[in-house]
C-alpha cells in the first residue's frame, strides 16, 4: 500500500489549517465606529483566505506531481529526527520552568550539562567543568558586564 502523504501534501494541509484557524479569529475581530474602509480585520481576512487558497494549491500540486510514487520514502528516519529535536526543546522548556525558582546561574549550568550529554557525550568531570565554566562566564557577562537583571533564584542571598 503506497502512501500519498508527501511533505508537500502535509505542508499544504498545515497551511489550510493555519489559514482556517487564523480566519476564524479574524472574523471575530470587533468592528468599531473608528474603523476605516478596510478595518482591523480587512488585511487579516485577506491573508487568511490567501493562506487557505495557497494551501489547497500546494496539496493539488503535491497530489498531481507525486501521483504513483510512495511518499513513505520521504519520511524515512524523520520520526527519529523529530524525537531528537523534541528532546532538546524539552531541555529548553525545562529551563523556562525552573529558571525563576532555581536562578539563572544554576539553571544555566544544568542546561549546558544537559545539552552536552543529550548530544551524546558521557557525563564526566570534563562535561561538569565545561558547564560550570560556561554558565559562570555567561552569568558574569550578562549580570556584571551588560547589567542585565537575571533571575537570582535560590542564590539571591549571594546576589547571584
Amino acid at each position, binding site marked *: 500500500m503506497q502512501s500519498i502523504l508527501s*511533505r508537500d501534501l502535509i505542508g499544504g494541509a498545515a497551511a489550510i489549517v493555519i489559514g482556517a484557524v487564523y480566519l476564524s479569529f479574524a472574523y471575530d475581530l470587533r468592528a468599531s465606529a473608528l474603523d476605516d474602509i*478596510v478595518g482591523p480585520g480587512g488585511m487579516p481576512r485577506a491573508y487568511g483566505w490567501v493562506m487557505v487558497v495557497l494551501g489547497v494549491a*500546494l496539496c493539488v500540486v503535491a497530489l498531481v506531481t507525486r501521483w504513483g510514487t510512495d511518499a513513505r520514502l520521504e519520511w524515512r528516519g524523520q520520526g527519529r529526527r*523529530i524525537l531528537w529535536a523534541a528532546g532538546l526543546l524539552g531541555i529548553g522548556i525545562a*529551563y523556562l520552568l525552573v529558571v525563576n525558582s532555581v536562578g539563572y546561574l544554576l539553571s544555566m549550568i544544568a542546561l549546558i550539562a544537559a545539552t552536552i550529554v543529550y548530544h551524546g557525550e558521557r557525563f564526566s568531570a570534563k562535561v561538569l567543568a565545561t558547564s560550570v565554566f560556561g554558565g559562570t562566564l555567561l552569568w558574569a557577562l550578562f549580570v556584571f558586564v551588560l547589567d542585565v537583571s537575571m533571575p537570582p533564584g535560590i542564590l539571591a542571598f549571594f546576589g547571584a
Partner: protein
Amino acid sequence: METILTSAGYLTDYHIVLAALIGVTWGIIGGALPGISPSITMALLLPFTYTMEPTSAIVLLAATYVGAEYGGSVPAILIRTPGTNAAAATVLDGYEMNKQGKAGLALGISLYSGVLGSLFGLAMLMLLSKPLAAVALSFTPPAYFALGILGLSVIATLSGDSLIKGLIAAVLGLMVATIGTDPVTGGTRFTMGSSDLLAGIAPVMVMVGLFAMSELLSQVSNRGEIERVNSKPRIEFPSLKLARRLIKPQSIGGVIGTFEGVMPGAGGTIASFMSYNEARRWSKSPDEFGKGSPEGIAAPETANNAVAETALVPLLSFGIPGSNSTAILLGGFLIHGIVPGPMLFQRSGEIVYGLYAGLFTAAIGLLFIGMALLPVCIWIVNRPRPYLNAFIFALILSGIYSIHNSLFDLSIMLAAGVVGFLMRMLKFPFLPTVLGLVLGYLVESSFRRSLVISGDNYGIFFNDRISLGLLCVSALFIFGSIGKRIWDKFRNQKRDTFSEGTDT
C-alpha cells in the same frame, strides 16, 4: 567626496572602531563554524545590541557580516566544508590546494581577496546609497505601500523550487505581523488577552528562533560528526607575479558581487558561483579550475565579500532587506527605533556615516584579525559539536531573555524555533517569512492610511508617480522571476531546491 570626508570623521570614534573589530572577530569565528551562517552569527549578537549606542550596534552587526563571509572560506579550504553557503565555490579549488600542501597560500588568497572585495563593495555602497535615497525622499503613504510591495515581490526570487511554498511562508510572516495593536484604529488583534502581545511579536524573537534555534534542533536531530583538521597551516600571501594574475578574477568578482548585492534576493552564493564561472571563462588557464587554481579562490571570495557591503544598498536606500543577513541588520535598526529607507540619510545621517567608517575599519581589520584568528578558527573547527551547540543554546536563551527580562519572549523564540525546524523538514524557505514579518506593518499601515487620505479612492496608488513606478518595478520583478521559472522548466534546468538557512 563629502561622504568620504564625513565618514572619515567617525574613524576617530573608538566606540565605532571597537564595534567593527569585535564584529569582524565574531563574524570570522561564526563563519568558520560549519552550519552557522552569517545570519545566524548576526542573530546571536542581536540581543546584545539592545543596550548599545545605535551606531555601534549597527556597525557591530554589519562588521559581523563582513567577517563571516571571510570566515566561511576557512573550513571550506581546510576540511572541504563551506562555513557559509557563499563559500561553497571556494571549496572547489581551495581544498584542492590544501591537498597539494598549499593550504596557507589558499587561505592567504582568500583573505586578501576578501579584503579587496570588501573595500570595493564599500566604495560602491557609498557611491550608490545616497543618490537612491534622495530619489526616495518625496515618499508619500501610497509610495511606502508600493515600496513594501516591492520588498515582498522579491519573494518570487527567494522561494527556491516552489513559488507556492515561498508565498505560504511569506503569508505566515504577514499573519504574525498583524498580532498586536492595529496601526490605524489602535484596537487589539490576535492578542488572546495577553498583555505581552499588545506590542506585537518583535522580529528579533522570530529571527533568532527561525535561524539559530531551528539550526540547533536540526543539528541535534542529525547527530553527525564533522571532519577534523590535521595540519596547522600558516597564512601565506601570493607573490607579486601571482597577485598580478589574480587581478582579473578579483575584478570579475568585484563587479559581479556589486551587481548581485544591489539586487535584492540575489546574494553571496549566486555571486560566488557566477564569478567562479566567469573567472574560468576569461582565464588563460581554465583547465586549472577545479584542480587547485588560485583564480578559483580569488574570484568567489572577492565576490562574496563585495556582496556583504553592496547588499546594504537596498536596505539603506529603500529599507528592503534582500538577504537573511540584511534582514537581521534591519532588525538591528528597528531595535533602536531607526527605520532604514528614504528618510534615513535625513534623520539619522550620522548612523549611515558611522556605518561607512565602521565598514572601512572592518575591511582593514579583516586582514589583521583574519591572520591572527587562523589558529583560533582551526581550534574551533575541531571543537566537539556537543560542547559548541550547548554554548550556543545557552547564549541564545540568555540573549533573548536580556531584551525585556521576559520568559514570554523565550517561549516565542522556542516556538519560532519549532516552526523553523518544521519548515526545514517540509522544505519551506525562511526568508519570505522574515520579509513578511518585517514588511507586514509597513504594507498594511501605508495601504490603509492612503485610503483614508484619498477618501477610499484606490486610484491614489496609480496617481502617485513614485507609487506607480515602484508598483511597475514590483510587477517586473514578479513576472520576471515567474518567467525565469518557466524558462528554467522549459530548459529542464534545476533551481536551488530550497533556501534552508541560506544566505541568499
